[in-house]
């Protein structure tokens, strides 16, 4: 039995599959693929699959992963992406499969790219406001936690960022803490920006990479 990790992209219509639903979609795909995967032995037996880091609804991603235990020790892992892809909707594409190198607990940060537009203000204005916001010492936002709402200073969590102005949009690339202990959702910055500008902001967010504590891509 081997602990196997597949990497997949999630995009287009499949961005709108919630984490809970993704679990169902993947279970069906694993079942349909007839991969010899270890199953739980409880009351409702099912293939045992886990996900390292949940992705927010509406985000696309280039670096999602799913773990399972493969019962067939001799199997060529490079066959697995195609076996799963024929069983998945178009918006989920498995591109790699290997034995798991790091533990999900090793995850430390993630790189996001957010493309922002607004109807009420120009891209230039949006860019200026966002620059100001990101440069200020404090970016206070209300964050929902298990115990209720608390105010956090987002600035403390920004590991690195860059801001780009295009003709119609503003693109933010930002590295934020990720993982089970501290996880910062990039939409919090958009909430802060909406508060600052008073404009309704539309966004497309993509997770580009997940990093371990050593700063290397999660593999």
């Amino acid at each position, binding site marked *: 039995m081997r602990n196997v990790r597949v990497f997949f992209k999630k995009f287009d*219509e499949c961005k709108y599959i919630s984490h809970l639903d993704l679990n*169902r*979609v993947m279970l069906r795909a694993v079942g349909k693929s007839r991969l010899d995967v270890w199953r739980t032995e409880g009351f409702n037996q099912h293939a045992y699959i886990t996900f390292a880091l949940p992705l927010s*609804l509406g985000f696309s991603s280039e670096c999602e992963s799913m773990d399972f235990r493969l019962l067939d020790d001799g199997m060529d892992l490079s066959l697995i992406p195609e076996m799963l892809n024929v*069983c998945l909707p178009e918006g989920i594409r498995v591109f790699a499969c290997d034995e798991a190198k790091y533990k999900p607990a090793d995850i430390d940060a993630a790189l996001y790219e957010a493309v922002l537009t607004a109807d009420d203000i120009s891209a230039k204005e949006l860019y200026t406001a966002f620059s100001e916001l990101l440069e200020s010492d404090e970016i206070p936002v209300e964050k929902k936690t298990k115990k209720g709402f608390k105010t956090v200073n987002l600035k403390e969590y920004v590991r690195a960022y860059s801001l780009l102005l295009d003709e119609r949009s503003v693109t933010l690339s930002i590295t934020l803490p990720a993982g089970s202990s501290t996880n910062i959702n990039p939409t919090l910055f958009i909430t802060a920006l909406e508060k600052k500008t008073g404009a309704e902001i*539309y966004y497309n967010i993509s997770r580009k990479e997940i990093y371990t504590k050593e700063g290397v891509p999660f593999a």
Partner: protein
Amino acid sequence: MIPKEVEKYLLKVQKPGRYTGGEMGAVIKKKEDVEVRFAFCFPDTYEIGMSHLGIKILYSLFNEVPYIWCERVFAPWIDMEEVMREHDLPLYALESGDPLCDFDFIGFTLQYELSYSNILNMLALGNVPILSKDRKGLKNIVVAGGPNCCNPEPITDFIDIFFLGDGEEVDLEVMELYRVCRKENTTREEFLRRASQIKGVYVPSLYEVDYNDDGTLRSITPRDGAPAKIEKRVMMDMDKCYYPSRFVVPNIEIVHDRAVEEIFRGCIRGCRFCQAGFLYRPVREKSVDCINEQTHTLCRNTGYDEVSLSSLSSSDYTQIVPLLTKLTEWSKKENVSLSLPSLRVDGFTDDILDKIKSVRKSGLTFAPEAGSQRLRDAINKNVFEGELMHTCSVAFEGGYTTVKLYFMIGLPTETYDDVAAIAELGQKVVNAYYACENRAKGQSVRVTISASSFVPKPFTPFQWEPQDTMEELRKKQQHLKSSITTRKITYNYHDSDTSFLEAVFARGDRKLNAVMLKAFEKGIRFDGWSDCFSLQKWLEVFEECGIDPAFYANRKRSFEELLPWDHLDYGIKKSFLQSECEKAYRSESSPNCREKCLGCGAAKYGGGVCYEKR
């Protein structure tokens, strides 16, 4: 495909996955490659619509025809509707993202009277004129199929064509005719006239109706060569009948998130309240081999690990045990669980229990429908208390501790004693649990009693009967509630308000079209959802239209009265329904189709149970 303008707002609404498409199994064709575009509309949310078997069958069937592209459209939930109206986004089909008004055919399935308001709303959201008379040229043909087509009179102003009976053949014939008419460049009217000549097609605009002074129907007159009687279509050979080998598999969880295999159509029982039991006669079964193969293929193609064997009464399938044996040969190995909905109390044997238990244990639900034997005889439910007790004991011995029992209140001939008998029956089931020696140790029993309000429906022996008034139904609900003396019984009941509206539209006539239109104009929709339904609003609409809803719901009709659906022929003789109704008055039950033929009329279709050896 999500239209660009829509995607911008998708994260502002609940469950955006409802509006995206892009599921495995969705059929994408090139617009240029097809001649007929069909928008299959389900007048409820995605999760409800995607659970419906009919849409799965017809979607696949239509898309197998190279010149047709069938897409899906569902009613947007109120938050999404608000966004669409605010930003002028038309209702679109999930496959192409194109607005409803771009389609040749816009087809609705009529499953439930309370979804009619959604039909009007969806047409309007899709930029399609809601009134038939305002739609011009050979496009936007609005068609409808499904059980409610047996009395479509309340929505004849909005729908161009109704399909009666099984849709597998007639729908394609009409699309083929459309293709021909478009080549010949005929008028819309000419197409409709020609369509009316196809068996199973009802074009309401070709019929004039006339009323008596008391508001009842005087006559229904066809014109332009339309048939005086419109006969339903029936697929007689179920093994040869089209069945999809794959479903569109939703990305988000839906109500019935599993594979479904239809095992037979129709029902032998003839329960007098049940419309489906008469509309789908005669009973036609699929063979064990056919079901086995179709089920296996479906599970393989969809990846579902649960399959539901669907019919009106699963245990009446003649080969049920051989079927389950055959299915479990592979289902266990492939970790697929089988579920058998619609089990009858008297059909629940140790054999069946063993087979379904071997895979996954789900809850047990039975529908005695009435509390007393007298009333069960009157409604022809033909379930005996002894059988229920035996079945429950078998289940309790098998480790079950919860049983759900479904009943109806407001049934014809019902007395308050009959209502109290529901509570007594529940109590007896509780007692049966404690009398059972091998019951689950240390666990209490849970009996859930659900009581819905009876709605008289067309093409049933009770089609002439008045519905109890809402006040009377509420009194009966309270009477039942106070008759329950144990906390081991949970009692659920439905609001009688929706049942009242359902009763009005179920047996309504064309005068109700004005009511529907006004209701739409007032923004009424999603009547099947308690968060949206308001009887008060509807009563205002009736008032403004000068129509008394009680005329439809609470009036006893005479056997001689011309009924709004008398020009539609579902193969059941009116005289048969009358004799069954009269038997109900005498609390007399009738034998089922396998015991004795009662000559209902369905034998004219030349097959099915009518020709089985008895």
